[in-house]
């Protein structure tokens, strides 16, 4: 099976002396929806930013679709940052044009189609939309790229349950057998049925990587329950 993300003894130290990732070794296969789960400050975003080439490892190695993070790997991996990043003055149609210019693998048709289902007027400005709608649009833009790996940092944080359902449905609906979706969250109950595999991370270390159905089968526990047990102080 193809590996879309591979870490070997990956360590990230920040200038302040904080070790955000400690000796992380990980291998994520193609064709899966994978949850990167951990409490706030556990290293989820650091791992994601390293995979996206926004941070450089202090030591060890990370490979995305077989490549060191850089221009080439960024073309293969679509990234949804935790924060809103599109300027408020942009209209829906501007955003589509912007993405189509920027990414060769962006499908304008797919984006238009998904936006239509949301019944959004292409003339509308981001400024006039609710936070939930803006988050949906950002996700649509990322999922409209034909990528091998989709990296979504907290895609369901801070949105209402209806928007959450929409986002999960968009992830399921756009999933293809050849692509992997890696999404980070601390809201486990809401997403655990959508996942194939979970990676538990705590204080910069990987504690567990496992198939979710195996966890349920062997322990008779939900992923949320197991998570709470493992992270209890």
């Amino acid at each position, binding site marked *: 099976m193809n590996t879309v993300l591979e870490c070997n003894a990956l360590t990230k130290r920040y200038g302040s002396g904080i070790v955000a990732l400690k000796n992380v070794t990980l291998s994520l296969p193609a064709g899966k929806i994978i949850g990167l789960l951990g409490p706030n400050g556990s290293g989820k975003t650091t791992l994601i930013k390293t995979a996206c080439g926004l941070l450089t490892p202090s030591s060890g190695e990370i490979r995305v679709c077989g490549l060191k993070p850089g221009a080439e790997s960024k073309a293969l991996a679509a990234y949804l940052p935790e924060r809103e990043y599109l300027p408020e003055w942009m209209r829906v149609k501007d955003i589509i044009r912007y993405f189509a210019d920027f990414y060769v693998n962006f499908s304008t048709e797919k984006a238009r189609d998904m936006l239509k289902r949301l019944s959004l007027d292409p003339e509308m400005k981001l400024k006039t939309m609710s936070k939930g709608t803006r988050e949906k649009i950002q996700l649509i833009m990322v999922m409209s790229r034909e990528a091998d790996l989709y990296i979504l940092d907290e895609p369901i944080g801070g949105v209402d349950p209806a928007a959450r359902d929409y986002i999960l449905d968009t992830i399921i609906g756009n999933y293809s057998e050849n692509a992997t979706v890696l999404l980070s969250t601390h809201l486990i109950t809401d997403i655990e049925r959508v996942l194939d595999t979970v990676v538990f991370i705590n204080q910069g270390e990987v504690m567990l990587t496992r198939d979710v159905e195996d966890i*349920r089968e062997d322990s008779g*526990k939900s992923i949320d*329950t197991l998570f709470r047990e493992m992270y209890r102080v």
Partner: protein
Amino acid sequence: MKWDFDNDRPIYQQIVEQLEKAVVSGDYKPGEKLPSVRELASAAGVNPNTMQRAMAELESRGLVVTQRTSGRSVTEDGAAIDEKRSGIAEEHTNVYIAAMKTLGYAKEEILKLVRGKLE
């Protein structure tokens, strides 16, 4: 159809059980074409690979068949559906009898209660 899952049991097993129930109760008719794995996964809010696994399991149990060109459909084999229906009925009966026995009910009393309820 309406889906309902517990997160502490394998989801594919629960999908199998719920689709079996839909077939034996006639919500899905013999020979009826089933939605695609993606559509079913989306409707149930579950992982597409999990739905795929459940479909493969239903196929191996003979309740669902694959046509090369038109995807999956419910079997037209009425006997297979009847057999599954009896199996589910028997499970429910066993669970009921076991519960009544723990309460200390004897055979005649159980029969009397059931008859009384049905009449």
